[in-house]
């Protein structure tokens, strides 16, 4: 009897995990499909609503489920949202915001494929990269535990030389800027040097902006927490792309929809992309202030020559590996490096993974990671196909306008009118890379410069 009952309870536990995971994936689809909503912003929103999520789930307590398990379910829900978001946001980044090819200074790889009628293939490649990253991260679970934690304790070494790691990354980021600026003439090294100088300019400007706004005291008119990062990141990264796509109306050809078939060389190449991307994703999850965009630059520098296709695979792998790895690092180096993990660490007590056996909480969260990864993979392919098919019929401009208004409303609700001022300033800086064709990741100066100054 005892055995039967406990098996019944285990079944209930599994069922609940499944339900919360599916819910998380569904929410992640919504946030992922909304263009311009970065996963960091989603995390901030989740973080500030986590107490209400706990309140909504309170009826579960009366069904004999321990409070701790309910909190784990909620943490798992948030992780599923972030994983699902990291899969699905490739759909709007592919289908929305493409510039006109002749006038654009730089075309993102996914937009390039869209303009060739291969939008679905771009989504499929991204889904492949994300899914591959999850598998790579799983394979690296134990090695990461022993390399980052004791006995090798590589993280301690990194922590001691954090300042130099950060400075090296910044130099790499700026020096590898390949955009040529020909405004002052087009001979010799001048255009390339100007490109690098402009990249440094954007980086410094974002850094000044960061130093300024972190001293700002925003307050929410409705009593919500007012994270200054929300308008800052939305302005630097989200708004400019959206506004840009409002002003340009590219002619997008009919999309071909074929299942992704790769020959042997392409398969091998994809495997290398997934591996380098995943390692870069794991690296950025260790260092404060680095985002996946920086991780992509690192991975691409390692990979050197690369096609648009492989860039997409790498980018997706970095994104998902970082999302996966921050959860893992929460238990190994005990640092919360993303909004989602901050929320998780506030919900549940984090037992460090110090022995051979991993903490039970982590095993549960890994179940969420794997399950949401598999679900998101198939859903991304399905939705990508749907988008590619119905692309002509989607009221594209209204969707973009809706998102712009939605983000602004959220910002006013969370950070008041002053938040809108911060958003405006951030957007004006975020426009620079788009107008001049340099990489947008230079805007990460907003976090990197304050962090470097902190370590100095």
């Amino acid at each position, binding site marked *: 009897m005892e055995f039967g009952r406990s098996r019944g309870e285990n079944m209930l536990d599994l069922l609940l995990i499944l339900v919360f995971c599916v819910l998380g994936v569904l929410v992640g689809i919504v946030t992922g499909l909304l263009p311009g909503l970065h996963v960091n912003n989603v995390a901030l929103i989740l973080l500030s609503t986590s107490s209400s999520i706990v309140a909504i789930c309170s009826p579960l307590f009366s069904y004999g489920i321990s409070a701790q398990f309910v909190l784990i379910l909620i943490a798992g829900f948030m992780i599923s949202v972030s994983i699902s978001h990291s899969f699905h946001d490739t759909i709007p980044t592919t289908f929305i915001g493409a510039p006109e090819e002749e006038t654009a200074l730089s075309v993102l790889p996914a937009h390039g494929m869209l303009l060739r009628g291969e939008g679905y293939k771009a989504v499929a490649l991204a889904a492949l990269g994300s899914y591959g990253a999850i598998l790579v991260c799983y394979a690296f679970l134990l090695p990461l535990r022993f390399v980052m934690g004791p006995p090798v304790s590589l993280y301690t070494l990194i922590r001691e030389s954090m300042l130099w790691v950060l400075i090296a990354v910044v130099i790499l980021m700026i020096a590898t800027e390949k955009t040529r600026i020909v405004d002052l003439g087009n001979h010799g090294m001048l255009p390339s040097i100007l490109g690098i100088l402009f990249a440094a300019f954007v980086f410094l400007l974002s850094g000044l902006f960061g130093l300024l706004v972190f*001293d700002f*005291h925003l307050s929410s008119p409705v009593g919500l*927490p007012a994270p200054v990062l929300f308008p800052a990141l939305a302005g630097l990264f989200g708004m400019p792309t959206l506004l840009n796509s409002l002003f340009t109306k590219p002619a997008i050809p009919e999309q071909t929809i074929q299942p992704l078939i790769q020959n042997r060389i392409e398969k091998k190449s994809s495997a290398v992309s997934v591996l380098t991307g995943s390692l870069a994703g794991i690296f950025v999850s260790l260092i404060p202030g680095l985002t996946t965009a920086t991780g992509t630059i690192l991975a691409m520098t390692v990979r050197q020559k690369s096609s648009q296709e492989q860039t997409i695979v790498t980018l997706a792998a970095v994104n998902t590996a970082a999302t996966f790895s921050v959860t893992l690092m929460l238990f190994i180096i005990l640092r919360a490096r993303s909004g989602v993990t901050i929320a998780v660490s506030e919900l549940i007590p984090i037992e460090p993974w110090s022995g051979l056996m991993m903490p039970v909480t982590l095993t549960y969260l890994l179940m969420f990671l794997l399950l949401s990864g598999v679900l998101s993979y198939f859903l991304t392919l399905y939705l990508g196909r749907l988008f590619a098919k119905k692309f002509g019929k989607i009221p594209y401009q209204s969707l973009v306008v809706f998102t712009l208004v939605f983000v602004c409303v959220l910002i006013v609700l969370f950070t008041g009118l002053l938040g809108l*001022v911060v958003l405006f*300033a951030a957007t004006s*800086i975020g*426009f*620079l890379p788009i*107008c001049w064709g340099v990489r947008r990741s230079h805007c990460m100066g907003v976090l990197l410069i304050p962090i470097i100054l902190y370590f100095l």
Partner: protein
Amino acid sequence: MKFKYLSILIAVGSLIGLYGLSLISQPPQISLSQLPAYNGQQVLVQGIVTEYRTTASGSQLITIKDRENDTCSAVLYVAGSVAVEYGDVVQAVGEVQKYNEQWELSVSNPQSVTLVEKWTNTSFPLWQLAEHPGKYLNTNVNITGVVAQKQTSSFLLRDTAGSYSLDVSYDASDGSDFSNNDVVAVAGRFIYDAHLLRYLLEVTAPTHGIWAITR
């Protein structure tokens, strides 16, 4: 002008605008005695930590008192926790409110509490403590003086002129090496011992200690 040149101007301009705004929007810095006049507003205050504890819900209550006027104190109600010690000078931004007849500052972000001066970094001679005991009561202090009447777990700290002396109680087991007539720096908490109606310097916490300067 092309939009791309204009974009640089707009970006730089908006940053300057933001800077101007940050100058205006900085909450006013007030002394603790002015708190009642700012009820419900965001302000910036400074003070010395005399008491701190963490509540069951994980918030931290830090009592600070004015650096100039030691009868004036306020509680910082911090959502989260901040590493502080008795005697640290801290600065905090928060909303003024009254709770149980005591003025307090509700600090929603622990990062709004910043350390201005660590207590260990300021050491001063005994006479300064003797002339303003109220200013330092219940805080950690770092006092220099001469050892006299050393016993197993207490001694008398005298100033070099011999006009003031203070009882010091310490834990003999942690191996402090000093003897009578040494000039020492004593880091401890300055408290009032109600049983014996006297002031006392207690050397108990891990950050406390006694170090011989000259023998």
